[in-house]
Every structure is written in structure tokens, then in C-alpha cells.
């Protein structure tokens, strides 16, 4: 923990000091006059009381994926039927431990990403390079201000925040070792802490790159850029960047620009690196989310692949080798067994790669990797046709070996009837395979199970070739943060409930039925004038569908943070701005102090800001840690059915009135405020359930009558439209008659009376005793 000594004013015979703060080993010039709240740089236990308060209402709900524990040499321990492991742990705490480990993996990924990008930018621009997110953004780092209690002004200021994050991750990880933490509730409190530091790491990474690279700075009109497997111009040399760290990819663009040949080489990306490449340069292209990785690499279109960090398939180098694509890995997290050629002369690296004697190398220097990638791509691209022998005939022959044994389906994570599709092509019917392309995760698990070794993903590619060629979409490039001016405009209507809610589509591409459902959800909420935000793979997948007018949702809706708009903040690290927007509302609209004041702000968000995230295809551990961080701040998250494999939800019980008591800050009285929001982390089985659940979870105790009326109108309407009936739990959300939508008032009142409904008070809600203004 950093020790902070503040000197407001000191005058002595040798010095006069004003507004100085000393941190161990570091002097921070302080111009921020906001008083420091109770928890700057919180330790693992500083926010434990808040966590326990949340977890009492939103009990952890576990769905173990595995009944065994094999974390130490006592194991395997069977934890079924209430049995304990040799170390004394039971299944509940063991699940809490696994969840914490997952959140730490996610937080560690974001922390290393942030560290790498900050180091890279400091090396390029210097420690004193200013953090600047544009003229309309004064509140540049809501999460850093809130958690760390500092106001970062320069790139160098971010280093101490990273030191803090890394320390927390180490301490938390040690708690997962055998013989450390034992209580599931405290594992969860630690997971919430991991989630919080994860969110801060996101912010560090993104404000550093927005400031020092030429990314849009909160621009609602960020340019529309190309996305899709069909947008890559194959007549040019193609460099594909995969992962999350934009440094090497941006150096490719730098080198091309410097050489005056940008435009004659395609620079494309998969996963979040792609987002950030288009934020860096609109000439870059997005192939798609991480699900496109295997199929695109197998196409052999890429001449060179640059790998950075996270979400990289571990078989990608083998796949690339098969089609003669050269690979450069660039970050120490992914060394892939490759020779380290960072210090070798550029010309010799190029020679080895071009000749293919060394088809894949590790280069730890982004600028060098960028230059090598360009030079190699230019040399080998002309021979691409010769390099890639079309596998079409081979695939068609292989399909004939299918015995319809069904093992492929039984190894498919989403149970697609892939066996039927493969078998149908015996009769030259490729329609089923082409159809399955729309839902398929393109993960390849089916083919690794096939006893006939049929390359099923390649078969899907061959069958869906026409569709793939036509995959040409537009996405608004990631705009980054929400402007302070936008927050000023929508803060009041959001807090009062008059804008029905903020719905954020976040996370990965592990969908149960393809991306179309995600598009339908986003469209539904935008049409209803919710504020719709998107990031990461979800933001890309929202673009991967055109309406009857040939438009994507980004062309149809404006990119402002306002009712009825859809905006893309950018890559995974830009999730910081979605979470940060809620914090900004508390500060800019409601004047709540941020500095080291986590509990109060979380309490404000939980009770007043109707923001909900939908992680429809959540897959990675990073999505778990981001969501858990959002949860600690009082933002509910809805997961698609695959999210059940995170093994843990945070569920409320609407029927337990005692769980929904809040303080009325005006009087200090304890009052029932209804189950709003009902859950903090909930797994839905279908798109319909996710939509209706989101419409329910945006309700907050602080909603005005008018606000609640608007929220209830949507909830009732969606419930009727998608489930066919009026909501049975309506009585829980109607506080007074004035909450009822006018057109249905009589009908609903009758229904409520049958349920024994009675009006309730509208409190000034808080869970924190210290927020009570006056006691009666």
C-alpha cells in the first residue's frame, strides 16, 4: 500500500510548500483540491463491508462445472454430497476460489496490457506526455480518481496506479493457494476486488493510448470503417494483427506511412487489436471478432500475422504454417516456443522469414516487428497463389468419409447439429453447412473429435464461401470516453428514470445462436430510446448484420451517448468508459465526490443509475473480471446461456422483503424499496429472457414516478410481446399509482389489488448509514 503524506501548507525558514503529496519513493505534484475520501488505493479488506452488504442481498449462486478439486497433491478430492477436500474446503468455497482465480486471470491480462502499452508510450513520448482526452472531457479518469484517489495528468502518473494494481493482484492470488482464504463470501469479496482493479487497469490502458496515439477522443461521429471477412483486398499484401495490444499493429501503419506505401498494403485485425487499429487509422480494417480467427487464417489470405496478447488461438501458428503465412509474436505473454530474434539484424530476420527456414519468430520490439512484417509481406505476397493450394477438392473428398456418427455434434460447445450438415453434403446439399455458418463459433472442436479427421471448419468455409465474400459491413470506430457535456445532458433523465436505461452490449462472441440475436437486442433497445453502448467483440458483431436497407445499426443510429443512439466505445479496455460513464454521472450530475470514495459512488449507482450490461457471448476470463468489477459498483450484468459456465451468478430473491430494505437518507428510516435491481449477475437461457430481464434490471429505487412509469411501460410491453403475458411480479415494482402507465392504469390496478398490493414510500435510497442526512 502506498503511504500518502499530504501537506496542505507549510512554511519554514528554508521552504514554503503548498498542496504537496508525498508517496513512497515518489513526489506527486497535486493540484486537485477535492478532499481525499475514505478509501484511496483500497487494500483487499478496505471495501469488504460494502462487498458483504452486496453479497447478503445478491447471494453467490454456484453451478460447479467439475465436482473435483485437483489444485494440490492431496487431490483429486471429490467434493460431492457435502464432502470436504483434504485441506478442509467444501464445494462452495472451492467454487469461490475458482471464480477468484478466473477474475485474477482477467485482471492480470488487463494489467499487463496496460503496463505494456504505458511502457511503450512512455518510451515513445516520455513520462511527461499529458493525459488529454479532448476539450469536452475534463473528468478524464473517473475510475482512477475513484479508486486510486489521484488525478493523472501525465503518462508517468499511470505507473503508480499500475504498481498498485499489480500489488493487489499478487495479494489476491496468494489468497487462492491451499491453506489461505476459506470463506466463499470472502473469496467473492476478493473477486469483487479483483474486478475493481481490473476495471482500473482498463482505464489506464485506454486513456494512455487515447492520449498518446491518435484515437478519437469521445467523438460521437467517429468515422465508419470497414468490417467483415469480405472487405480485405486480396490483391494487396495482407498483414493481420490478432489480439489486444495495438502497439505492434500501429507500428506497421507507421512504417507504411513513413515509406509512403500506406494503402498498398492491407492492415487488418481480429479481436480488439482490430478495434484499436481502426481507432489509430481509418484505413485499417476489422476482419471480425475472435470467432473468425481459425477460418480466416486457414483461408491463407494473410501473408504475415502479428500476434500480441490475449484471445489468440494456441494452434494459430500451426494453422498459419500450413498455408505458408509467416508469424511474428511480439509480447512476452505469447512466446509460443519461437526463436527470440529481437536483437537480430532486421535483414537477417526478413531473410529467414521470407525463405521460410524460420516461419515464425518472436520480436519484442513493436517498431522492429512492424517493419519486418511489412517487408516480409511485400516479398511473399506475390507468391501467395502458389503458396496456398486450394483445399476445396480435398475438403469435398473428406466430407464423403462422414459416417454420421454424431461425435462432432457431441463435442460442439453449443450442440449444433453439425453431423447432419456434414452428412447432407454427401448428396451435394451444402445448404445446411452454409446455414450452420451463421451460428457456428468456428472453434473447431467438432473436427478434433471426428474419427474420420474431416476438416469440418474448412467444409463450413467452402460451403459458405459466397456469404463470406459478401461480408462487407460498416462499424463506427471506437469513440472512447463519454464527454462531460453528454453526461450533463443525460445525467438527470437517467437518474430520474426518464431515459429508461443504459444497455451495454459487451464481451466475447460465444453466442448460443449466432450474432443475429445480439443485433436484434441492440435494435430493440435503441428503438425504444434506451442509450445503447457496445464494446469489444459484441460491438463488432452488432455490425455484422444489415437491415433491409442494407445498413448496419451503426449507420442507422447516431453514435451519441443519448436516448435512441448506439455507440461503440472500442476495444475491451474501452469498457472502462462504459463503467466510467456511471461514475461520471454521480460526479458531474450529482456532485458526488469521487476521490477515494468508492462505497458512496457504488451506492449511488446501485440505487440510482439504470445501467445494465448484457454479455451475450461472454467467454474469456477477462469478461468475468470486467463484469465482477461492474457488479462491485452496483451495475448488473446479464449473461447468455454459455455464461453459466462461469459457475457463479449473484442472485437476489424478490420474495424476501427483508433483503430490499434501504435507508431513506432524508429521515434515516429503514424502508422497503422493492427488488431493484433484482440481480447483479444473472444467466439467461434465451434472447427473449435477456431482453425482458434487462428491462426489469434497469429499475432503481430512486426512479421518479414518471421515470418508473416509462421503465414499467417498456417492461410490460416487452413481457407481453415476448412472453405473451403481463408480468406476474408487477406489484413488486409499482410504488404508487403514479408509477402506472396511464393507458393501462385501470387494468393494472385491478391486477395489483388482487395481489394485495399497497402503495409504498419513495425513499432517497442508500445502503450506507453514513449517507443519512437527518434522523427523525
Amino acid at each position: 500500500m502506498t503511504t500518502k503524506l499530504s501537506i496542505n501548507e507549510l512554511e519554514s525558514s528554508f521552504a514554503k510548500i503548498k498542496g504537496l503529496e508525498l508517496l513512497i519513493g515518489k513526489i506527486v505534484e497535486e493540484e486537485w483540491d477535492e478532499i481525499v475520501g475514505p478509501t484511496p488505493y483500497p487494500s483487499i479488506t478496505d471495501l469488504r463491508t460494502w462487498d458483504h452488504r452486496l453479497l447478503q442481498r445478491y447471494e453467490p449462486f454456484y453451478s460447479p462445472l467439475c465436482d473435483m478439486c485437483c489444485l494440490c497433491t492431496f487431490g483429486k478430492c471429490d467434493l460431492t454430497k457435502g464432502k470436504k477436500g483434504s485441506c478442509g474446503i467444501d464445494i462452495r468455497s472451492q467454487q469461490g476460489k475458482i471464480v477468484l482465480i478466473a477474475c485474477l486471470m482477467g485482471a492480470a491480462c488487463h494489467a499487463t496490457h496496460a503496463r505494456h502499452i504505458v511502457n511503450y508510450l512512455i518510451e515513445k513520448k516520455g513520462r511527461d506526455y499529458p493525459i488529454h482526452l479532448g476539450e469536452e472531457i475534463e473528468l478524464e479518469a473517473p475510475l482512477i480518481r475513484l479508486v486510486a484517489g489521484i488525478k493523472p495528468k501525465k503518462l508517468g502518473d499511470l505507473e503508480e496506479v499500475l504498481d498498485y494494481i499489480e500489488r493487489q493482484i499478487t495479494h489476491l492470488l496468494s489468497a487462492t493457494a491451499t491453506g489461505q482464504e476459506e470463506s466463499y463470501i470472502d473469496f467473492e469479496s476478493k473477486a469483487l476486488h479483483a474486478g475493481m482493479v481490473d476495471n482500473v487497469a482498463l482505464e489506464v490502458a485506454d486513456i494512455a493510448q487515447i492520449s498518446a496515439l491518435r484515437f478519437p477522443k469521445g467523438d460521437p461521429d467517429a468515422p465508419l470503417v470497414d468490417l467483415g471477412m469480405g472487405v480485405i483486398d486480396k490483391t494487396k499484401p495482407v498483414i493481420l494483427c490478432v489480439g489486444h495490444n495495438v502497439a505492434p499493429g500501429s507500428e506497421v501503419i507507421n512504417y507504411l506511412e513513413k515509406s509512403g506505401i500506406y494503402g498498398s498494403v492491407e492492415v487488418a485485425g481480429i479481436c480488439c487489436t482490430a478495434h484499436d487499429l481502426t481507432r489509430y487509422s481509418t484505413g485499417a480494417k476489422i476482419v471480425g471478432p475472435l470467432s473468425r480467427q481459425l477460418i480466416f487464417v486457414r483461408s491463407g489470405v494473410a501473408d504475415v500475422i502479428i500476434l500480441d496478447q490475449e484471445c489468440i488461438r494456441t494452434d494459430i501458428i500451426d494453422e498459419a504454417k500450413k498455408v505458408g503465412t509467416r508469424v511474428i509474436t511480439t509480447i512476452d505473454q505469447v512466446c509460443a516456443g519461437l526463436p527470440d530474434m529481437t536483437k537480430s539484424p532486421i535483414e537477417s530476420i526478413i531473410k529467414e522469414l521470407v525463405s521460410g527456414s524460420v516461419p515464425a519468430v518472436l520480436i519484442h520490439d513493436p517498431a522492429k516487428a512492424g517493419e519486418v512484417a511489412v517487408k516480409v509481406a511485400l516479398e511473399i505476397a506475390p507468391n501467395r497463389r502458389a503458396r496456398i493450394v486450394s483445399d476445396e477438392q480435398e475438403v469435398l473428398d473428406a466430407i464423403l468419409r462422414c459416417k454420421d456418427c454424431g461425435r462432432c455434434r457431441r463435442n460442439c460447445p453449443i450442440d449444433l447439429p453439425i453431423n447432419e450438415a456434414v452428412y447432407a453434403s454427401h448428396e451435394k446439399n451444402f445448404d445446411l453447412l452454409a446455414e450452420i455458418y451463421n451460428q457456428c463459433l468456428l472453434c473447431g472442436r467438432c473436427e478434433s473429435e471426428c474419427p474420420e479427421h474431416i476438416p469440418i471448419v474448412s467444409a463450413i468455409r467452402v460451403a459458405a464461401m459466397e456469404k463470406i465474400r459478401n461480408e462487407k459491413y460498416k462499424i463506427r470506430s471506437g469513440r472512447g470516453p463519454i464527454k462531460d457535456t453528454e453526461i450533463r445532458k443525460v445525467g438527470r433523465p437517467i437518474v430520474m428514470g426518464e431515459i429508461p436505461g443504459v444497455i451495454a452490449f459487451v464481451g466475447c462472441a460465444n453466442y448460443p445462436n449466432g450474432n443475429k440475436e445480439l443485433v436484434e437486442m441492440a435494435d430493440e433497445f435503441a428503438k425504444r430510446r434506451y442509450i445503447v453502448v457496445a464494446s469489444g467483440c459484441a460491438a463488432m458483431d452488432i455490425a455484422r448484420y444489415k437491415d433491409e436497407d442494407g445498413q448496419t445499426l451503426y449507420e442507422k443510429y447516431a453514435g451519441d451517448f443519448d436516448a435512441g443512439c448506439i455507440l461503440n466505445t472500442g476495444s475491451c479496455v474501452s469498457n472502462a468508459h462504459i463503467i466510467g460513464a456511471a461514475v461520471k454521472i454521480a460526479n458531474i450530475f450529482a456532485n458526488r465526490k469521487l476521490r477515494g470514495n468508492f462505497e458512496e459512488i457504488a451506492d449511488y449507482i446501485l440505487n440510482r443509475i439504470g445501467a445494465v450490461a448484457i454479455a451475450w457471448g461472454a467467454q474469456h476470463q477477462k469478461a468475468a473480471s470486467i463484469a465482477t468489477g461492474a457488479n462491485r459498483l452496483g451495475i448488473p450484468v446479464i449473461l447468455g446461456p454459455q455464461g453459466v459456465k462461469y459457475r457463479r451468478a449473484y442472485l437476489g430473491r424478490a420474495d424476501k422483503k427483508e433483503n430490499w430494505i434501504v435507508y431513506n437518507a432524508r429521515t434515516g428510516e429503514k424502508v422497503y424499496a422493492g427488488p431493484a435491481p433484482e440481480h447483479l449477475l444473472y444467466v439467461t437461457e434465451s434472447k427473449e429472457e435477456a431482453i425482458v430481464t434487462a428491462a426489469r434490471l434497469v429499475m432503481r429505487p430512486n426512479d421518479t414516478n414518471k421515470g418508473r412509469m416509462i421503465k414499467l411501460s417498456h417492461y410490460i410491453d416487452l413481457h407481453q410481446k415476448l412472453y405473451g403475458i403481463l408480468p406476474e411480479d408487477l406489484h413488486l415494482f409499482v410504488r404508487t399509482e403514479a408509477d402506472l402507465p396511464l393507458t393501462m392504469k385501470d387494468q393494472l390496478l385491478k391486477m395489483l389489488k388482487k395481489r394485495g398490493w399497497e402503495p409504498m414510500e419513495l425513499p432517497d435510497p442508500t445502503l450506507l448509514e453514513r449517507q443519512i442526512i437527518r434522523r427523525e
Partner: protein
Amino acid sequence: MSATPWQIGDVPGPKQAHILRPEVFPKIVKTLKRPLIVVGSRKEVSEDKDIANNIVIMAKSMNSPLVVSPSVFKNFMKFKDVKVVCMGIEDLVNHLKEKEWKGFDDKGNYDSILFVGGVYYFQSQMLSTLKHFAPHLKTFSMDRFYHPNAEFSFENMSEVRWVQEFRGMVETIKSSSVS
């Protein structure tokens, strides 16, 4: 007897479901005091009128309410002489795992939960929750997939065979409830 999970990797550990034979199930059904049937969101099951009808007949014969996953609830709302509840399955399971829960009729928790029509991997995890945290309940999977996390599960079978077996089973349950 042993069976392999429908999803090959869905191996939870040493405790796996006993195989439930459709022809034996009607006898077991008679021993259940407070059953609850849970219908998941798979459209192949709920949108097939014959199957939906058979599920309702089964519920009626067993005097069991039906909890239906919201997205397919419309297929069941027309049935009047059986209690049909529209509820998210994770929310339901969260209630079921509390032994003292009062149920939908205020008469207390159920003693046996019969699942049908769920998305395989989602249902598997719901069964896992109940296996670990609801020792007061017996769980049955009546789908055509072997679900190791249930206490009793049908083994893997083809769609065609399952429809036949399910129909036959419901017929027996119905006639034995009348007799």
C-alpha cells in the same frame, strides 16, 4: 449401467446420474409426492404441439405445476387446467435450492424436479447446482440426452426414439393416474 454424457466433455466427477428407463419411470412417478416439471427453452420440444401436449398431460396426471422458460412460455399459456408458471430457470433453481421455500402454492418446496427441453449445457449446470446444493430434491432429466448431473437421466437416444418413448411413458403415467 453406465452412459456417456451427451456432450462428451461434460464429465463432472464420480457421481453421475443413474440411467432412467422410460418404461420404469411411471412406477417411480407414483412415489413422488410433490413433483415439479421444468420446461427449458429448446424450441424443438416446446413448438412441437404433440410433445407440448404430452408434457401438459404428464403434469396433469402427476398433479405437478409446470415451470416454463420464458421464451417458450407462449406455447403453454393456452392450457388452463394445469398451473403453468413463466420463470427464468436460473431464478427458479435459486428458489428450489432453499429447502424452506414455500413453492408456488405456499405449501412448501417440491420433492422432485423433472427437466425437459432445456439447452443441454445450461440445463447441465442447473442440475449441477441442485446436485450440490439441494440434497432435499431428487432431479430427473427426461430429455434425449444423458445428463450426468441429474440424479436420474434418460440415456442418449435419437430424436425419433425419444418421441416414441416419451409418448409411451406419458400414456402409462396418464392411465395409471386414472386407475
